């Protein structure tokens, strides 16, 4: 039984076998094991956070993680950065006929490890198998429920002039790794995805100061797109300092080669926090005591300039607009 066949998704014995031999083997927990049509959850929080995300990354395995790790971290992070304690996840797999059983097992095992690591339980799941060519290997959807901390109010619209913007480490690692590995450019070097669950880091930040205005994970579209969204929602301008942006040399090099700007490249383990100036140092130092915040850095601040613009003081001198990503990179200069 080395490859997934269509009968693994037909609902018959093969399906059961797959669920028992792979999914239950790793995900097993008290709620999942009840095998109800729906998971019954007892939750001690007044307000819940609920989110969903689908993962379609190519390649499925990359330095620093795989699609399974990504599927857990992505949803855990969405809960964590909204000020919630991640509690339960569901996951749904859409698998291509012929997909390697061994690879599937690695993916599931990784998901279980990452769930354990971030303290969430996978409480429900689904598996579908589709004909060869209809998906690319495997797609995973995860949804997650978290309990919102009562004394915390994190919201995209809360950024205030004077806020200091902190990231928890180097930017662009994930996106750059994926692009380079996908294409075998030969300049991958030490590139590695930053894929990680950020909830324990967020906990540590909120422990030292629970009044943080905004926290967002900077996934698709990178730091630039998150900052633009926040500037819009909060009706403020944002100024970044290019010389303060933490970027790994290998990311810088690859981005240079490809003509990309690390500010626009996806991350899977990075957040931007907007902290009032008075508490910024305190939060920054706390972040640095956490393994995922060792390279935390202040990269800019919120201003009261009109026009809701995000811009950057550049190293060569002058201010550059950091616009919303448009999706296509088109040369403008003559």
């Amino acid at each position, binding site marked *: 039984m080395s490859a997934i066949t269509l009968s693994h998704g037909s609902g018959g014995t093969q399906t059961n076998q797959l669920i028992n031999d792979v999914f239950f083997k790793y995900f097993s927990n008290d709620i999942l094991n009840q095998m109800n049509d729906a998971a019954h959850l007892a939750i001690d929080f007044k307000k819940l956070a609920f989110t969903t995300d689908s993962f379609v990354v190519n390649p499925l395995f990359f330095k620093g993680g795989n699609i399974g790790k990504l599927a857990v971290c992505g949803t855990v992070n969405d809960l964590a950065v909204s000020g919630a304690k991640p509690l339960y996840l569901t996951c749904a797999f859409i698998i291509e006929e012929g997909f390697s059983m061994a690879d599937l097992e690695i993916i599931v095992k990784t998901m279980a490890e990452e769930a354990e690591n971030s303290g969430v339980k996978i409480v429900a799941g689904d598996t579908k198998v589709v004909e060869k060519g209809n998906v690319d290997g495997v797609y995973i959807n995860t949804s997650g429920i978290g309990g919102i901390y009562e004394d915390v109010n994190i919201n995209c619209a809360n950024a205030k002039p004077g806020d200091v913007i902190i990231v928890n480490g180097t930017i662009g690692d994930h996106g750059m790794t994926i692009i380079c590995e996908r294409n075998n450019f030969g300049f991958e070097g030490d590139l590695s995805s930053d894929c990680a669950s950020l909830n324990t880091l967020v906990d540590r930040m909120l422990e030292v100061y629970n009044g943080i205005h905004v926290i967002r994970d900077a996934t698709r579209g990178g730091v630039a797109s998150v900052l633009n969204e926040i500037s819009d929602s909060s009706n403020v301008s944002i100024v970044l300092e290019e010389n303060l942006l933490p970027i790994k040399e290998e990311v810088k090099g690859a981005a240079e080669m490809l*003509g990309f700007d690390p500010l626009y490249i996806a991350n899977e383990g990075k957040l931007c926090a907007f902290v009032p100036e008075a508490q910024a140092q305190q939060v920054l130092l706390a972040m640095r005591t956490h393994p995922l915040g060792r390279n935390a850095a202040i990269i800019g601040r919120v201003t009261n300039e009109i026009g809701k613009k995000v811009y950057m003081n550049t190293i060569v001198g002058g201010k550059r607009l950091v616009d919303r990503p448009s999706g296509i990179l088109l*040369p403008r200069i*003559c």
Partner: protein
Amino acid sequence: MTIKRYFIVVNGIVQGVGFRPFVYNLANSFDLKGNVHNNSDGVHIDVEGHKETISKFLQRIEHNPPPLARIEKISIREEIVKNYSFFEIIESKKTFDIITLISPDIAICKDCEEDIKSSTNRRSGYAFTNCTNCGPRFSIIKALPYDREKTTMNEFKMCKKCARDYSDPTNRRFHAQPNACQDCGPELWVEDNEGNRLEIKNPISFVQNKLADGKIFAIKGLGGYNLVCDGGNEAAIQTLRALKRRPFKPLAVMMKNVETIKKHCKVTELEEELLTGIRMPIIILDQKQTYDLPRVIAPNQKTLGVMLPYTPLHSLLFSDKLETLIMTSANVNGLPIEYTDSAARKSLSGIVDYFLTHDREIYMPIDDSVLRVVEEKQTIIRRARGFAPEPFKALNMRDILACGPTMKNTFCISKDGFLFLSQFNGDLENLETFEHYKNNIERYKELFSFSPKVIAHDLHPEYLSTKYALDYDLPKIAVQHHHAHIVSCMFENDLERKVIGVCFDGTGYGTDGKIWGGEFMVCDRKEFTRVGHLDYVKMPGGEKAIKEPWRMAVSYLYKALGTREDCGRLFELYGEAAEKLTKFLDSNINCPQTSSIGRLFDAVSHIIGITDKVTYEGQAAIELEALSDIEIQEAYSYNIIKQDMYIIELYKMIKEVIIDKFDGVSTKIMASKFQNAIVNLSVSMCTYLRRDTGINEVALSGGVFQNPYLLKKISQNLKKEGFEVYTHTHLPSNDSGLAIGQIIIANSIIGND
């Protein structure tokens, strides 16, 4: 003989240019009677005398008006004789309304120069001397009508003597709004680089001494601050380059007089005329054998950008020992020119040794204009001081704002039958320049009482000027970049009917989402059909491929040679990086396709071995052109394929270049053979297109036509084939002329709705 009386109205730039005293003196010299006054619709002349005398008088007005006047129209009607007993200048009518025409800033005139150089004149050595024939205009006007109260000279009250000059119709300073002298006008002083004013009796001689010592000054000039140092002092120039972060781009110099210029550069009659005329722009001149200025001024160039002292302040800086000054706009790395004292102090204090400044405020910042004479015809590279806001006439225009391109931006507004093309605003690459651009648009709106009804903009979705345009809640018209280039050329050559447009350019967004720039089109002022272009090649890394020509070189080589295996010798040239780049090219990630001639120039100049890294726009093309020899006739091959349009392939040429390169052929020959190929393919294409369409008129536009080699040879060879060839004279062929094309096309599109 009987006396007749005529009432004459003269329209155009006739106010604030000494027109009334001119008429007054002319009438008196002919012994005519009557009066003259300014009115909202122009200058009104009421004149009596013999018919023949009056017609001579009129001829003189028409053919020899004051130097700054530009007459648009003279209308005459006969009136009943009043028997005036003398000729006088009478009060302007109080109905005085908005005058739409504002004079550009005018270079110092011969008479004023004499005044400041003569030790007996009361304006001797005075840096802000001017008269009706010269001096600041556009840069100091805050509002219209143009009188002193509405300029930044309103701070200064004229002394008795100046007031007398101002109100005497026979005086050269009659109604010269910025008229002043050292007793009443702006004052000049020196500050150290921390902004402390130095107590110096004679700031000019202090500056001269320090310049001679190799010090660097920020000097507040007419339209902004300049960075200045001794043009003979290599070390000082190197320092200035480092401070300005401008390693290679040629620097402009200002020279004491034409004689000094002629020591270093060839000066033709037309070039001398332009150098010494009322605008005094920077002229790009060919260096002479005897050129002996430091090479760091214009590295890898056979030319030099030179201008004459165009204000009294500049004129005073020169001496027997100081004949050449580096005079470059005071900004760092692409930021807008500094023009306010506070901002200049802030951004330049760490850069310069001293400031030479004054208390006449600059209201409208404006850079120096740059011209070059090609084939005994002027071409404008940068249209700013001395030109803007002099309008172009265009009838039946709606009120349109054309937002212009993102690089080398100018914008354009249409009002009352005129197109006002803004001064050069620079590259909208940073927030500062973008703000500067938006401010200037607001100032034009205010100054010309203009509110647009329609917005025209480039098709490129990522131009900041496009994003600016899209914020207007008004009808908008997107114009294709190269169509706008060709129509700007059609406009200045009065062409209405369909032409063959040859647009050789750097970057422009095409209707297929690709980057165009080697385009043949058949177009009129409203529509275009793309009929041919250079075959598309990939730009690995997008804008990175523009800044690093080796990428375009590898892209062309890879496409020409086909497979990685065939690129064996190519990898010898480029090493490991080339192989990585070919993988990158295969991936198609951030590899936009382009038909740009600018990119072809980058590629070839890199393969030939001229340009390694581009530090200023067009560097590869400029350096390649500088190396070539127009006498060489040999050319590389090209291939034109007819599909649904003509596709020009240059892969054979690329192979020939490599063969020449490995054979050790000189760069001069390679550079010339390459440009000759462009010339030949242009002529072939135009011949095919004439055969297909019957059109014999060819308009040449686009930034690449700043290359005199191509401009000369392509026009000459097309003319030899019987084509009518139209090129630019009053508008830049580069993107800073684009807004005119945008406005004309937008107007044609609305017009037919």
